[in-house]
């Protein structure tokens, strides 16, 4: 690792001020960023640790039935406390391994937007709102492709708001070495329709499978997806699976998620 300074602000305002300096970068739980720094793929002059900001931590349910999760909340805490949204809690409880879940945060995962990460699919399928220090961003506008989001330089995810669906489920076909999703599908059924978000599969990162959404909105049953498939044109192909394999898995995992959601 190249060397850098670390600061540990205790408020969002202080963190934003620290991030205003040249070559400063936010540090969430570090479960992706620290390995990245070890490989010298990033070389910030200053890391601004968000782990000590109490106002960015915790899970609560608002009066409108929306589940609010602080950006600095660890996966382990979401798994234990997001009981109002069981599919989301289950997703959080299956990220990485227990020690990783005790450090990694939801804000860090969404800001990184790894194309194989679990959380982006939950946010997109839930039509979540990403609340930053300056604005609110709809999930549909937030994810802009692999490792790319609508966040500006120095902008911090303070909270994520999830409308709680009637039914939901996340199915992850795990890449066994990394425990990232080879393909993961999050299905969420709301009063006004079904949303289906796919992670791990596309070169453009997480995406909505709109054709499946339309079919499931009129008939919420795995048979509604019979004969339906996604194109393998933009799918990731690597040593773990070809593009065609991933495209096939999207259909399989979506059906499993619908069946499991009940």
């Amino acid at each position, binding site marked *: 690792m190249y060397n850098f300074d670390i600061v540990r602000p205790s408020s969002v305002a202080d963190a934003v001020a620290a991030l205003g300096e040249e070559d400063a970068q936010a540090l969430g739980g570090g479960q992706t960023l*620290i390995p990245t720094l070890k490989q010298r793929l990033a070389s910030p002059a200053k*890391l601004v640790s968000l782990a000590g900001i109490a106002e960015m931590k915790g899970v609560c349910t608002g009066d409108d039935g929306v589940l609010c999760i602080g950006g600095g909340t660890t996966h382990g805490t979401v798994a234990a406390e997001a009981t109002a949204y069981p599919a989301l809690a289950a997703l959080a409880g299956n990220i990485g391994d227990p*020690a990783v879940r005790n*450090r990694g945060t939801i804000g860090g995962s969404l800001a990184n937007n790894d194309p194989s990460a679990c959380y982006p699919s939950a946010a997109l399928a839930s039509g979540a709102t990403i609340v930053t220090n300056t604005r609110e961003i709809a999930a549909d506008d937030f994810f802009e492709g692999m490792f790319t989001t609508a966040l500006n330089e120095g902008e911090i995810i303070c909270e994520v708001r999830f409308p709680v669906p009637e039914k939901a489920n996340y199915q992850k076909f795990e890449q066994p*070495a990394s425990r990232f999703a080879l393909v993961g599908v999050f299905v969420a059924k709301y009063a006004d329709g079904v949303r289906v978000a796919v992670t791990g599969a596309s070169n453009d990162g997480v995406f909505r499978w709109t054709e499946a959404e339309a079919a499931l909105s009129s008939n919420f049953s795995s048979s509604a997806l019979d004969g339906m498939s996604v194109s393998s044109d933009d799918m990731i192909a690597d040593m773990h699976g070809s593009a065609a394999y991933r495209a096939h898995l999207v259909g399989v995992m979506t059906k499993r998620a619908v069946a499991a959601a009940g």
Partner: protein
Amino acid sequence: MAKVEMTVNGKTVSGEVEGRTLLSDFIRGGLQLTGTHVGCDTSQCGACVVHVNGQAVKSCTMFAAEAEGAEVTTIEGIGGNDGSLSTVQQAFQDYHGLQCGFCTPGMVMSATALLKDNPKPTEAEIREYLEGNICRCTGYHNIVKAIMAASGQDVGAIAAE
């Protein structure tokens, strides 16, 4: 360099660290507590697991500066002050839950964290909890047995593999 102060195994310790100093480096190099092992240094193997404020974390994937003010427990702090083994350590010995022993500090720290949250885990829960701890010798079987025994459960119920 910046000063960092924390409590390790009940003692207040401090030292000068760089921003990039990992908690594992501070524990091993700074404090000379070399029971915490670094196997992969890529947050996969779990040999470096310690407890920070009561939670299992991979000390190779956390900066020492982030542990400022924290309560850290390493493998050296798991047994009694008189050198006696903890229940989990004793069970690892009784059930031969190790061969070369390299992964054992992390295994014991993870197992101890598991039993704190879940005093009577099932075999499946133990295996799932150890997903982030890799052992290349034992095939995990005796480790799982040891943790079952440490939780006061019947080891005979685990089928041989």
